[in-house]
């Protein structure tokens, strides 16, 4: 079965016909209301004035039944017409299709959009190199010394490692700029070596380095990590124990010498 709505040849005329039908049924319903009021008044007056009231009551009952059926019929007619008017969405779908076609197929708009895109891309290309927040990160050991002098855009928000590296590379250490604080950086595991007497009897302080405390210096922040060496070092077995014993003997001898010197 074909839907009669879809096989309509002239939808505008059909729509106007539906609207006319709906208005007509609504007008009939309104007229029925006044007729029912008039009939109710008539039945009441007749019932009061008549002698045989049973007949009047029976006639009134029949009329009420017929009026009820008529009201239901009119209401059904009105609702059906209104439903037909509302659900007749072919016009809206047709308009939507037309608008979509205009939006997609319209050649002038399409060409204008393409040209605008090209122009905008040309403007973007002519602006030159712009700062990019995502720069490639290279390890400082792979960087040549010649490229350290190349001016780079100011990097803000990079990691602290590169900042400390730059500070260490670009800034020369000047004693005039050294703040009042001096820090004696001693490598504690090598303490016995630094204070160990040389062959000529003098104590060396080669490993005793004096470093100023400055912001951004990575020398102080980088501490010796013994666990790293332990991870990479092969197992020594008994030699480790032997070396530990030598370490303890050296420390004891060192303490004795300090006591003797004092």
């Amino acid at each position, binding site marked *: 079965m074909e839907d009669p709505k879809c096989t309509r040849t002239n939808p505008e005329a059909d729509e106007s016909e539906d609207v006319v039908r709906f208005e007509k049924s609504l007008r009939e319903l309104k007229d029925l209301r006044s007729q029912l009021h008039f009939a109710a008044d008539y039945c009441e007056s007749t019932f009061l004035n008549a002698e045989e009231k*049973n007949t009047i*009551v029976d006639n009134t*009952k029949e009329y*009420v*039944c017929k009026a*009820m059926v008529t*009201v*239901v019929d009119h*209401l059904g007619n009105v*609702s059906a017409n*209104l*439903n037909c008017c*509302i*659900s007749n*969405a072919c016009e*809206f779908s047709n*308009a*939507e299709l037309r*608008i979509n076609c*205009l*939006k997609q197929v*319209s050649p*002038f*708009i399409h*060409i*204008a959009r393409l*040209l*605008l895109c090209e122009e905008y891309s040309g403007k973007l290309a002519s602006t030159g190199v712009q700062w990019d927040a995502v720069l490639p990160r290279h390890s400082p050991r792979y960087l040549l010394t010649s490229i350290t002098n190349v001016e780079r855009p100011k990097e803000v928000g990079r990691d602290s490692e590169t900042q400390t590296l730059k500070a260490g590379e670009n800034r020369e250490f000047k004693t005039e700029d050294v703040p009042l604080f001096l820090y004696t950086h001693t490598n504690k595991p090598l303490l016995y070596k630094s204070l160990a007497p040389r062959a000529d009897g003098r104590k060396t302080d080669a490993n005793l380095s004096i470093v100023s405390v400055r912001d951004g210096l990575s020398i102080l922040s980088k501490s010796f990590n013994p666990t790293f060496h332990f991870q990479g070092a092969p197992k020594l077995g008994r030699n480790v124990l032997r070396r530990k014993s030598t370490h303890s003997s050296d420390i004891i001898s060192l303490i004795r010498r300090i006591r003797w010197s004092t």
Partner: protein
Amino acid sequence: MARAGGITNAVNVGIAVQADWENREFISHISLNVRRLFDFLVQFEATTKSKLASLNEKLDLLEHRLELLEVQVGTASANPALFNT
């Protein structure tokens, strides 16, 4: 005689009671149908409102699309140099 009159009265009362019950039944039928009619009207109102709301949304969407198309056509027609290149 008095007995026959009493029976007649009783019959008349019975007939009147039966008629009263019939009338009550009729009124209850009518009131029930009126209630059904009212329910139908309420349901029809709700359905019609929802359909009209959906139609309103569709019309708004179509209106916005038409406005967008109008702006695009106006922009393209205001710059004829774009078509000459």
